[in-house]
Structures are given as C-alpha cells and as structure tokens.
C-alpha cells in the first residue's frame, strides 16, 4: 500500500513538473533578472533599475497592451520592468504575488489592484520596505500606495459613456442598462455611481432612463447571458453601456446573435481588436477607451520618478513623462494623490482600423 502511494505521489510530481514546465520559461527568465539587479541594489545607488508592472491578471489584452507601453518607458529610462501577475483576477492571489515581490526588494511597483481595501496592508508593507508604490487602472485605497495614475477623470469617463449612449439612443432617448464587471470592482462602481448622478442631475441626459445594472463578472459567458436577459426583460431597451472590455464584446455579440442590430446598441469601454467586428456590423458603432499603453507608460515614469527621488509623494510635484509631456501630482479627497492621464478616446468605424491591439 505504501508503495502504491509512493508511485502515485511520484507520478503526480511528474505531472506537476510538466505543468510548471509549460509555464516555465517566463518565470525562470524573470527570476534571473531579479537576481542580477539585486546585486546592484547592494551598492545603495540612487538610481533604481528593477520595477514590476502588476496587472489584475495575466492573459488580458488590456494589460498586455499596457505592458507594451511600460516596456517602451523602460527602454527610454534604461530600467528593467518585469510584467508579473496572477492567472485570475483575484485579490488574494495578488497579495501573495506582491509579498514575494516585496521580499525581492524591487525599486518600485505599478499595480492594477483587484481590491481597493484588501491590498492596503500589502501596499503599506511595500512602502515601509522603501519601495515606490504606484497604482494604475484600478487603485488601492490612498493609505496603501503613494500615487494613483488615473486613466481619466471619473467625471470624464462617465460623461463620455453617457454622451455615446445619448447619441446612440437618438433624440427621443429611451431605456439604457449598464453591464458591469464584478459587483465589487472599485473603478466600475465609481463610474456607475457617477453616471447615475449625471443621469439624475443633467438636463442633457433627462431622456435616458437607466433600467438596471447587471454584473457579468468579466466572464465572457456570464456577461453574454446577462446581456441576453436584459433584452428579454426590457423589450424597449435602446443602449447597453458596458464599462468593461469583456462585457462590451460579449454584449455586442449577444446583440448580433439576437438579430437586434439597429434596435439595441452597445457602447462603453472596449479595445479595438475585440470590438472591430462589432463596430463594423453596427452592433456597437462607437466606444471609448484611453490607451492602456499610455497609461502604463505614465505609471512607469511616475514610479521611476518616485523611486529615484525626482518627486516625493506630495501634491503639486511636477515631472516629465517622456513623450506624454509634463504631469502634476494632484490631491483629491476621494482618490488621494493622483496623476491624471487625460481624456478617453472615442473609437468608431472611421478610425478603428488605425489601431491594432
């Protein structure tokens, strides 16, 4: 019996090692780089060279595009930026990863947070260890990081989505619905709250009626099913706003499959490659997004400026971020210290073929 358990255990280990081998090369490469740079850190030089860009999860084109911008910034600054994340967008996994990065004593972290509050202690531990902590895309609460790179002002993102919805619904307006990611995603909830407030207060949106907000959990299948049930529940629905890249593509596909092109329009935040088909078939004539490559580019510049002491984590500090120009650290009662990237960009049939990501 003992022998059998041993056999099973050894076979299992073979399987596991195969599994690791499958995703091996990347990890090995990054470890090697970390070791190299650690030796240099010993010299206590003010120039800091190894940084890590942490996405919400791996295998998400949005973050992968961000990494392209981050690497561009890394090349310009002469630093190393590793791209490390967990397989699923999960706060616990992210904490585990961050702890191991803190232990490796990197110079700076640029994180897209899976949870604003859960990551605060980890962020504090990193700052205590002398690591520059910047968040981008999705923030850690102000206590857990130095500076957040804000992709666009809350109001700007909410407004551009309502403007698109308003255009798509036509002059008479009509029913609109929101299809979000998870019900706990901090950025999603902030945008939704801002949209609700604008719908209630601004004259321009008075003819839009928000009937429901549903959650697709950034899962393609679930988002698709949620979109389907929106048409079923609200036969007069005019526009679905999906402020998430997974949700918007799934919704546009659901509209296409249900033969509702021209009756229900999908808009929100998406990426060009994902939405190309649906912009062209008319299910989603326009959508918006900042350029994630620019966002991560700015995040790397900010992290580097912090780590090298070019700026400190205080409002009013200014620095230059390569091709994007000059930025100022702002203070905001809710967001805390932040740097604002700029206005989101609207993609439509006229310009979508200029982009490939």
């Amino acid at each position: 019996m003992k022998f059998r358990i041993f056999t099973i255990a050894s076979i299992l280990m073979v399987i596991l090692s195969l599994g690791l081998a499958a995703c091996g090369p990347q990890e090995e490469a990054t470890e090697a780089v970390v070791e190299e740079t650690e030796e240099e850190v010993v010299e206590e030089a003010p120039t800091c060279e190894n940084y890590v860009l942490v996405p919400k999860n791996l295998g998400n084109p949005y973050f992968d595009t961000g990494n392209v911008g981050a690497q561009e910034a890394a090349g310009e600054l002469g630093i190393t930026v590793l791209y490390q994340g967990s397989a699923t967008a999960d706060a616990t996994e992210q904490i585990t990863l961050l702890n191991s990065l803190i232990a490796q004593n990197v110079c700076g972290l640029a994180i897209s947070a899976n949870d604003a509050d859960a990551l605060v202690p980890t962020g504090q531990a990193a700052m205590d260890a002398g690591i520059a902590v910047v968040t981008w895309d999705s923030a850690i609460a102000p206590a857990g990081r130095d500076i957040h790179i804000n992709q666009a002002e809350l109001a700007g993102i909410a407004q551009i989505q309502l403007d698109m919805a308003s255009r798509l619904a036509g002059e008479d307006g009509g029913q609109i619905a929101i299809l979000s990611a998870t019900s706990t995603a901090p950025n999603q909830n902030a945008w939704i709250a801002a949209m609700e407030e604008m719908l209630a207060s601004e004259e321009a949106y008075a003819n839009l009626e928000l009937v429901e907000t549903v959650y697709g959990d950034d899962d393609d299948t679930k988002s698709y099913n949620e979109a389907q049930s929106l048409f079923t529940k609200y036969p007069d629905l005019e526009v679905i706003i999906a402020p998430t890249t997974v949700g918007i593509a799934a919704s546009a596909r659901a509209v296409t499959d249900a033969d509702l092109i021209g009756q229900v329009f999908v808009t929100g935040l998406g990426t060009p490659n994902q939405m190309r088909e649906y912009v062209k078939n008319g299910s989603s004539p326009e959508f918006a997004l900042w350029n994630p490559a620019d966002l991560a580019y700015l995040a790397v510049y900010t992290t580097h400026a912090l780590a090298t002491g070019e700026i400190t984590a205080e409002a009013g500090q200014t620095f230059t971020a390569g091709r994007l120009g000059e930025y100022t650290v702002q203070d905001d009662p809710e967001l805390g210290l932040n740097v604002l990237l700029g206005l989101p960009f609207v993609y439509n049939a006229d310009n979508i073929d200029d982009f490939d990501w």
Partner: protein
Amino acid sequence: MTDQETSIGKQVPRQKLNLLELFSRFREVGIIVFIAILVVAVSLRAPSFLTINNLTDILMNISIMIIVAMAQTMVILTGGIDLSVSSVIGLVAMMVGFTLSANSGIPDIAAVLLGIALGAVLGTFNGLIITVGKVPPIIATLGTLSIYRGLVFFYSQGTWINAFELPQSVKLLSKGKPLGVPNLIIIALLIAALTFIFLKFTRVGRNIYAVGSNADAAEFAGIRPQRIKLLVYVLSGLISGLAGVLWLSRFESAQTNSALGFELQTVTAAVVGGVSTSGGVGTIPGVLLGALLLGIIQNSLTLIQISPFWQLAAQGLLIIIAVVSDKLISKRIVRSK
C-alpha cells in the same frame, strides 16, 4: 384484461398503479416535478421567461454543457471523473482559433476534425495516466486541468483570438439555423441521442455500466476494465475537443480563461441528473434534465431580479433542494410499492 387482474391482485386501484408505474419507470420524475414548479414560479414573476426567444437562449446556453456532460457521464459511470474537460475546451478553442486566424481558407470540417483530434490526444493522455499510471482519476485530471490550462497561456502568450479573426462560416457552425433551430442545439441533442444509444444498446456501452458497478465482477465476466476506462477518457477528450470548436464558434473568441470552471458545471449536470459518483448508475435522459435545470436556474435568477450578490448562493441552494426533493420523491415511490 391483464392490467385489471394485476391491479386487483395487488389490491391497488388501477389509476394509482399506472401512476406508480410511471414513477418507477422514470426515476427522473423528481427533477421533472421540480423543473415544473420552478418554471411556473418564475413565469409568474417574469412573464418574459416563457417566450420563444428566452427558451431558445436557455437551450443555446446549455447546449455545450449537455455535450460535455455526456462525456462526463460516461466517465462518472465507470466510477471516475474528468476535471480536465474545461481546460481541454480552452486549449482546443485556442489552438483551432489560432490555426483559423493564421491560415485563411481552411474548410470548417477540417477545423472541427482538428479540434476532435486534439481533444482525443489530450483525453488519451488522461486515460493513460489513470490506467497505466494507476493514478486516481480525480488526481490525474486535476493535474491535467492545470497542465492544459497552463498550455493555453503558454501557447497563446496571453493573447486572445477575437471575433474579426474568425471566418463567418465557423461562427455559423453553432449559430446558423438552416433547420429553423440553431445548429448548436441540434448538435447537442444529436450527441445526447448517440450517447444514449451507445450506452443502452451496444455491448461496450453496457460494459461501461458493468465496470462502474463492480470492476472485479466485470473482469470475471470477461470485460477488461482498464480498456473500458481508457476508452471513456479518450471519448471524454474527443467530445470536449468538439465542444472546444463549438465554444470558439459560439463565443466568437478564444480567451485565456475560456471555459474556466466549466468542469464543475458538467459534473453538476450529471450528478443532479441522477448519475451516482460511485459509478454504475445514471441515465442520459436524467442528465439532460439536470442540464436543463441548471440552465433554467441560471437564466431565471437574473430574470426575477435576484440581487447579483445572492445569485451564486441561490444557485447552489436550488441545486441542493432539487437533489433532495428528487431523493425524497424516489424514496416515497419505493416505500409505496
């Protein structure tokens, strides 16, 4: 009038006997009753539930689940389990997606065959670990669940296949409706029918039950249990490979997390449908009902405006209520006999 004679002999009124016979013949009656109650309750609260569109949506949404649940059922009937099905779907969808995107003009049938072949290879690997390596199925497929998903990341380097990269004809494989009903639904029912016939009327099919009920006894009867076990994992991979191509077609994309967690849905459909996890017991009509129940629950929770914060818990609760009521009803039947 033999009917009347038996009923007099057993001292049971004729009508009741017929009802009991019906009950005992279809063990799935518990689920049918539960589905009926659920349908009535939901349509009272949300009239849009019973529209053709919504019912088609439900069937479309459970079609791939039905297909893979057929594979899962055959595996569970032998007393095993295949947790790697979701990763097989993800890997096949990704590899076929990349192939289609890189080479235009590949005929659809070639894409389907490629998917099936890839799935069969992955399934054979599972089967060999279990039969030759003597690893318990839950551990072996838990391992390959990770390996195959890891290969998705490795192969795709994190990129996705998007809608515009796929030929229209591939999308129509699942969505086209030359027969008035979307192809995917027809394919699912066809595979269910084939599995039903295979399990019920072929020798190999009956042997699957025999191995699951008692492998030693089956061996005495001249069946080779290891061969049957290898076969079900190969079939499971093969069917999941087909499901991978259909997934690509239906969702017009291959994402790194495509079908993540789907394995548990197929196990749930089988178990709710009355398949015993210890093997040897279970029917295809039961599994179809199990899948239908899951589909209705998922669809209706949104329609009747259950808060998204509660949906997952409500889904689990309904599944447990369904299984318990099924057990209670079948116990009643046995007792009243």
